[in-house]
């Protein structure tokens, strides 16, 4: 872990404060106002905002541009970057460009498969995978070299993040993979939405045992449940999502108009538990297209006032 803080998120995490990040999906169009609106909703409640990179393979404003807009608003972006759409040349050049624009956090992802997105006919790239991407950013930062070994004029100093999904299979491999990502140079980890707390606890325990929680900041991911329908959809249709039946039953157990409230409550309880958990350094609130609730959640969990 680098000693000198690279970004605001880095300094929050390194200070030992329980960090909070939010998420902001760029618009399916060139309208900046949407971004402004979302930014305003998050401002003050989060330490950094993840800007997704054509998430679920649907064409949106580029994450670099959107990050720049948030930066201009005074928010700190975590620029997500997927391997799906760019080969290694484009990836490196985009990183350099992003850095030059003042972006300091990067989240390295493989990316959702295009078959779910708006353009399933597209050719995917996957030239390098997320592991390679992490190492590439790290090498650019720490060695000042690009992948070809060329000395960069100015090295992009990025705070490097990656995703981890404790709920995907094969489980026994999940910690191993985390270790591999950390080895590759990850500074912080944001996990997939946590609903199955039991499994998460097991995962973090294994990570602790491997000493991984000492090597990188791990932020638990949460997403508030709006309705039973949404929960069921996520359970069945969204890849890598693990929502235990108890959660669904709990939401389904209350009247329809109270379901949202119940969902938020679950979310807050999760955060409270994460706060106390050894080895968890923050929370990543993914209230996708529901940014107005982030404040409530963060407030409710007693993270920010």
């Amino acid at each position, binding site marked *: 872990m680098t000693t000198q803080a690279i970004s605001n998120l880095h300094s929050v995490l390194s200070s030992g404060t329980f960090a909070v990040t939010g998420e902001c999906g760029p618009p399916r169009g060139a309208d900046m106002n949407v971004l402004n609106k979302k930014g305003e909703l998050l401002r003050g409640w989060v330490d950094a905002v993840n800007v997704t990179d054509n998430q679920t393979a649907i064409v949106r404003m580029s994450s670099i541009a959107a990050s720049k807009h948030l930066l201009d608003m005074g928010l700190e972006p975590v620029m997500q970057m997927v*391997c*799906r759409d760019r080969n*290694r040349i484009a990836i490196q050049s985009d990183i350099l460009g992003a850095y030059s624009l003042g972006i300091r956090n990067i989240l390295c992802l*493989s*990316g*959702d*498969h295009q*078959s*779910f997105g708006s353009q399933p006919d597209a050719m*995917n790239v*996957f*030239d*390098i*995978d*997320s*592991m*390679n991407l992490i*190492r*590439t950013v790290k090498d650019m930062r720490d060695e000042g070299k690009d*992948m070809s070994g060329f000395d960069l004029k100015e090295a992009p100093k990025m705070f490097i993040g990656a*995703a*981890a*999904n404790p*709920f*995907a*299979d*094969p489980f*026994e*491999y999940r910690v*191993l*993979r985390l*270790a*591999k990502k950390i*080895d*590759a140079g990850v500074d912080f980890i944001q996990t*997939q939405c946590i609903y199955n707390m039991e499994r998460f606890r097991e995962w973090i325990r294994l990570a602790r045992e491997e000493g991984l929680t000492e090597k990188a900041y791990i932020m638990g991911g949460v997403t508030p449940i709006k309705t039973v329908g949404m929960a069921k959809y996520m359970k069945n249709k969204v*890849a*890598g999502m*693990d929502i235990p039946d108890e959660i669904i039953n709990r939401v389904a157990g209350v009247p329809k108009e109270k379901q949202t409230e119940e969902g938020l409550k679950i979310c807050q309880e999760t955060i409270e538990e994460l706060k106390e958990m050894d080895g968890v350094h923050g929370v990543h609130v993914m209230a996708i297209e529901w940014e107005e609730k982030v404040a409530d959640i963060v407030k409710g969990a007693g993270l920010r006032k």
Partner: protein
Amino acid sequence: MIVGEQKPIEEIKKMVAPYKKLLILGCGTCVKTCFAGGEDETAALASALRMAFRTEGVSIEIDEQTVERQCENEFIQEAAKKIGENDAVLSLACGAGVQAMARRFPKEPVYPGLNTTFIGVQESHGVFTEECSGCGNCELGNFGGICPVTRCSKKLLNGPCGGSQKGICEVDANTECAWQLIIDRLKTLGQLNNLRTYIPPKNWKTSNSGGPRKLVREDHII
């Protein structure tokens, strides 16, 4: 083997419509194995095409022949006589076969009757799976003999993405997660440690990113 699938008959009809005499040329190797271009398929397609044109009142003569392999000169040559007698060839071979024909018979229009789908195996009766992408740089040794380049939807070489659940790939409920297979197999083989190794970015130059590939065996050239 190379797996292929017959093109829809409408598409074939459009391709060959301008000709009065057509030779349908089957290929007796890979595409016969996947029941797309062997003797039987050639005969069936010839019959279907004749009827298709007849229903429209179009007269076309359709001849048929099947050679052992359309990618090998000696066998291609067997078709020379019939090709000479016809205006065009509808080749029921893989793309390589079609091009080999086109190359050997410069003046003869050659059309593909199949879609070449992949390099694979017959997993069980009527089920064919892709097993190799011909990336030119085989890494199977690291992965217990299961190819992530071909069988992982994202060609991930450093472990599964977060989308794998119960051994199924996020892309398609009928696709096994290659990484699940790799991990299971490495576990059986006692080689799980392989997975800790960081696999550097793959060299795609040997794959089709490097332009058309060519393999020259100097030791075979005199």
